[in-house]
């Protein structure tokens, strides 16, 4: 379905796209407070509301990055202030594990940021968003969907060559060594 939707305002220039997962009680409310206080900040972040940062499944983060996000921001209550006692702590543990994994995959650790922002810290929402947008602007696009396309092309090329080879074998001809290319991921 995603592919059927065309971008409504193509302006050509790349700008960081960031998906944020904010807990309902602290950080989402802080973002509301930033709004009520008219604290202007960068428009690159799309906020998704969850009840608790403990609900943030690492798969959400991976999904966001593979669907074209350049970074993910997670916001939860400060330690000891979680509305559900310790969901934020669970989130922190998962986040640390995920970060190690992402680093192994060649994704810069700055692209996943976890912040504790209380309901009173509208100012911090503004600061964190602006900082993150600046960091990601510096790092450049992550571009996983594009890389997927590239890999798909390479794979189909390989498959084509393989089947061609197979045909040759089936046809009784002398097998030809397939010219393999080193694929840099």
């Amino acid at each position, binding site marked *: *379905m*995603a592919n*059927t*939707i065309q*971008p*409504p*305002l193509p*302006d050509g220039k790349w700008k960081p*796209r960031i*998906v944020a997962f904010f807990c309902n*009680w*602290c950080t*989402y*409310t802080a*973002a*509301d407070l*930033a*709004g*009520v206080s*008219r*604290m*202007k*900040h960068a*428009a690159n972040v*799309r*906020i*998704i*509301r*969850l*009840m*608790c940062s*403990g*609900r*943030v*499944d*690492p*798969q*959400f983060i991976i*999904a*966001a990055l593979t*669907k*074209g*996000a350049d970074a993910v921001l997670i916001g939860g209550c400060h330690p*000891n*202030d979680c*509305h*559900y*006692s*310790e*969901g934020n702590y*669970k989130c922190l543990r*998962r986040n640390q594990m995920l970060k190690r994994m992402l680093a192994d995959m060649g994704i810069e650790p700055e692209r996943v940021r976890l912040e504790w922002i*209380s*309901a*009173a*810290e509208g*100012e911090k929402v*503004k600061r964190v968003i602006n900082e993150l947008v600046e960091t990601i602007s510096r790092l450049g696009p992550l571009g996983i969907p594009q890389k997927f396309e590239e890999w798909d092309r390479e794979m189909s090329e390989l498959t084509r060559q393989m089947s061609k080879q197979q045909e040759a074998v089936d046809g009784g001809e002398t097998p030809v060594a397939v010219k393999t290319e080193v694929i840099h991921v």
Partner: protein
Amino acid sequence: MKPIVPKKHEPIRIGFYICHCGTNIAGMVDVEAVAKYIGTLPNVAVSRHYKYMCSDPGQELIQQDIRETHLNRIVVAACSPQLHEHTFRMATAAGGLNPYHFQMVNVREHDSWVHTDRVEATRKAMALARAAVMRVPHHKPLEVKKVAINPNVLIVGGGIGGIHAALTLANAGKMVYLVEKEPTIGGHMAKFDKTFPTLDCAMCVLSPKMAAVGSHPNIHLWTYSEVAKVDGYVGNFKVSVRRKERYILEDLCTGCQECVNACVFKEPKFQDEFNLGLGKRKPIYLPFPQAIPPVTLIDPEVCLNFKRGRNPDGSHTVSDKCKKTCVEACGDRKAIDFKQQEEIKEITVGTIIMATGFQIFDAKRTPYYGYGIYPNVYNALEIERLINASGPTEGELVMRNGQSPKKVAIVHCVGSRDENTNRWCSRVCCLYSLKLAHLIKEHTEAEVYNFYIDMRTPGKSMEEFYNRVAEEGMHLIRGRVADVYPDPNDGTTGRLVVQAEDTLTNKILKIPVDMVVLSVGLEPHPEAENLRRMFNLSCSSEGWFLERHPKLAPVNTFTDGIFLAGCCQGPKDIPDTVAQAGAAAAEALALIDKGHIEQEPNTAYILAEECSGCKSCIPLCPYTAIAFDETKKKAIINEALCKGCGTCVASCPSGSIVQNLFEDAEIFSEIDGVLAD
């Protein structure tokens, strides 16, 4: 409650509405373009923009579309869901759909109000709306969860705010537990002499209310007590209260004070907390004559019976080295119990009102005003006690040297409006300074100089009061005091020089005075941070308890069932505190009288056929809502205990836990949606 399985193959028909909110949204977001764009997306049957979606015609528009074009999903892009999610769910329900077939998009607080580029803001609105449109087909019909509410109320803090809230609720027939840390209720108001702008006596209006609290059958008054622990949720809070030992049995004490008269200390000798150390009390004492409850207490730090029986580790044992004249005086009443221990009371309440008040600014933090250095520098609360007829000088305004001041300077904004101490305006100081100016002049005929930055007298009858005091011949000088020091020409009398610029005449004034009164500001209570954690509240950056919405929910907190009254939420005067206490009581009553609480049906449940029985979810739940069925080897969630955080859902390795309203499919579509441009 099991979610109803939606009819298969029913085509999804979404109605999308974006609100202009006057120009609040439309001024920064091209709402027409958003509506047009969303109209092109799959499943969208209707896409509109409208001036005020939350208005009656706006809601009617949704209902009409549901009826006429057979919509089965609704998306509204407007303000924060914290504000109007409920409104639009109700409109969706009124149109004949399940209220949870609705999704809200925040394009005001998170978009139009915080961005400056119209193209960017519009693009963001489209992305957020698209995410909701992609999410909403996955919504399942759900039912509101109803939980019974315990009708008892806990009120923390027995100042005028707590007192008023307690009486309102008790008069409405509810059982109230009023917990106060000090030995008596009354709070700061009990220390004041007169109140502005009416100049009526504070105690005259307060003491009948205090007495009513003391005798009310529906109020459990627990003074000298502190909340130790809070568990549970709205409707069903479990609270532990620590009742400290006062060594007097409350039920047996009649308040006759014969024990005080009989104490071996013939004269009061120890610093009297109620009079801020300006007066003296005995080891056994009543804080002040109208104290409620009228029950004395013993200070073990100075009582001979304890002092002589002190153990090396600091604990007390009863000694035989004291004559125990107090016990003798009490006689048959047997109200004195040297062996009394602190006691923990466990109570269950449905709602809580926080009325924990404030503390005054410690003027030592502004060292150049000489508080704590020069004996003739006082803070305003000390002056309240000195001019109070029941105060340590019986209402005669005399200084520590026994003399009556002839010239008095009142310094406004001490610990207010100052980056070096507290940045906020404490709101009441200008008015209480004018009141003190009037009272000081009335008591002593002294010349009074008020040094102010700006004279702030908003509110009913306040400007008139300012006018009245000005007419009495006060010196009102516009300039913040920069220095207070002993008069170099007069070394012995303790006279002080107050130095400031009169900013309206550009003159530097050095006025010799006998007494300096510092109009100290209001600060969050020193216990506020502990209480905030214990009650799971939020605080503003200054440390005041945070209200749910600054305008529309000023007594609510982000924790359902906990309400705020008085200065714990921010500086305010007595009428505003009482009004807020009434409002908090009404909010509590509204919950109680409904009889039950409606909870978001965002609980989690287990897909038994998928569960592998690995038990990894069980220790994660902070509410022990997950149990393990040993016969079926499957986890089960107790819905009544589940609070809907979703932590277990995120951790289930087989993906067999589902959270209503936040299902994986819903969130993944939302992620797809925000990124699909």
